[in-house]
């Protein structure tokens, strides 16, 4: 491994261990520490999405893929804010696809998210064939209504499409979902500070080959893959956030008492022995 690779590996390992609630600061600090890896770090490390409003009042989501310098492009108006000259634009055929995809995933968002915001950005992949796109969703908790202090769900899906032959295409999907929940943990006897934060992100990849040559095939294929992925990841997040963390707490603190647990185990063992006779 080169010295640079070694540092990138170390930086990414750190990101996996530092508190997810301060991912933005962690990323900033890493960029300060290893400025020569800035591009790699910004490309690889997902950050919570920021929402913005364009001149027509549409909400859009910002990420590294709609950024040029300090300006961000709205997928609805196709203009940069703050305005810049010669900002990076998708080529016309990808812009057509981008417009359709924004409409399409906006309908998908309505069905699954019942609110929130979505944005889709297209660009030409480095090798020139096919396309690359990212599909973003953001939903914020109505904190007061749900009794929370704060909370959000951010989904970042990056898709790469590469034609295999005249009839089939290869799709690679990398999905990250960030889920963060923040709530009060007061009880009858607490006085002052009592809070619970459950936050973090999970990333998964999928690769598929489907029949697909026309734009509408690609949109359908990407849509189905993304829906499948989001549904599976939602289940995983639920298991990890509310199952795995809880199991770990229960392993440390035995509410029933260790001697009760031991007695139960002994009883079960005795019973098994009895039945085994």
């Amino acid at each position: 491994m080169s010295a640079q690779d070694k540092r990138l590996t170390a930086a990414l390992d750190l990101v996996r261990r530092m508190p997810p609630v301060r991912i933005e600061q962690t990323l900033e600090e890493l960029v300060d520490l290893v400025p020569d890896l800035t591009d790699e770090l910004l490309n690889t490390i997902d950050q919570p999405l920021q929402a913005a409003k364009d001149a027509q009042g549409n909400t859009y989501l910002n990420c590294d893929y709609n950024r040029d310098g300090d300006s961000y492009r709205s997928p609805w108006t196709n203009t940069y804010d703050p305005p810049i000259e010669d900002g990076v634009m998708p080529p016309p055929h990808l812009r057509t696809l981008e417009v359709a995809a924004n409409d399409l995933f906006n309908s998908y968002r309505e069905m699954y998210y019942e609110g929130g915001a979505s944005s889709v950005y297209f660009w030409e992949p480095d090798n020139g064939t096919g396309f690359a796109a990212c599909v973003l969703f953001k939903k914020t908790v109505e904190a007061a209504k749900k009794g929370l202090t704060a909370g959000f769900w951010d989904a970042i899906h990056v898709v790469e499409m590469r034609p295999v032959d005249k009839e089939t295409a290869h799709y690679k999907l990398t999905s990250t979902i960030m889920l963060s929940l923040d709530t009060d943990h007061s009880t009858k006897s607490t006085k002052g500070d009592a809070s619970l934060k459950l936050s973090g992100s999970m990333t998964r990849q999928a690769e598929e080959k489907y029949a697909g040559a026309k734009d509408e095939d690609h949109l359908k294929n990407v849509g189905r893959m993304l829906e499948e992925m989001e549904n599976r990841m939602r289940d995983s997040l639920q298991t990890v956030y509310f199952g795995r963390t809880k199991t770990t707490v229960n392993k440390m603190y035995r509410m029933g008492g260790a001697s009760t647990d031991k007695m139960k185990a002994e009883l079960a063992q005795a019973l098994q022995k009895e039945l085994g006779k």
Partner: protein
Amino acid sequence: MGDESELTDAQKLTLAKNFILQSPPAQQLKVVEDVRALVGTSVLTQQHELSMLKMLNTKEFAAVSLPSGEKILLTPHGELPDGTFLDPSSKQVVSVDHVKLACVNVQPMDAALLKTVEAAAQLRDPIDAAMRAHVEEVLPTGAVTTYGSSSASGMEIICCVAVLNSELANYCAGRWWGEWKLSCSKGGNVGQLTGTIKCNVHFFEEGNVQLTDGGTFHAELPLTGDVGEAFAKKIALFEIEFLTKLEEIYATLSEQVIQSLRRRLPITRTKFDWEKHTVAKLAMDLQTQAGLR
């Protein structure tokens, strides 16, 4: 690279310390290794590393096993000016390897130290015994260290408990720690009991998910009768309240809240119709474009 915004060594060291002090449970040496790879050993010297690990171990009540097999916790209340740690139970002073979290030497307390420890023993010892029994029951792999001090105005007992759950092969680790202080003024018959519960869990398979939970508690404790028993009972009550509330919070978050963020299925209970929507959108867009021409 190498521009004017390059950090100074002192700034790098501050960031290094930041990272190390935020290590998730049982992974501080991995974090140190990563940080070392980023800043280099000329910035993060072995001496810095040791002092940062010591800070972290003391902050999170790391446990160290004594040659006797008993465990003590490293806490700010037991740290002596020469960097050794106090064990009021065995009346010894312990030197610690902060990297390996191991005991390197134990020495009996000197007369002066022994005298201060014994001055609070009448209250410390029964609280320590009752809390050990409590911890054995509810935090069976945990440890307890109780400190006492006495002054002209009264007595102060600080009881620290901690447990670490390390399952790094399963990408999971957790830490639970509590710090409980009983302040009694001279001649008073009610003491002030305050303290905190903290609980962190880290899960890092295909991601990084962390639970950071905690609460500060307060109660008055009568100083008549079996104070040790009453102390441990109060702590047990706080802990049960805390965990019962945790169950309630989890029940709400795992159902209503997550469903309000992103539904499991659309309200129609059927998946999105990509066929229908895609054809409709593309047709519409082509029309719009045709209209614009």
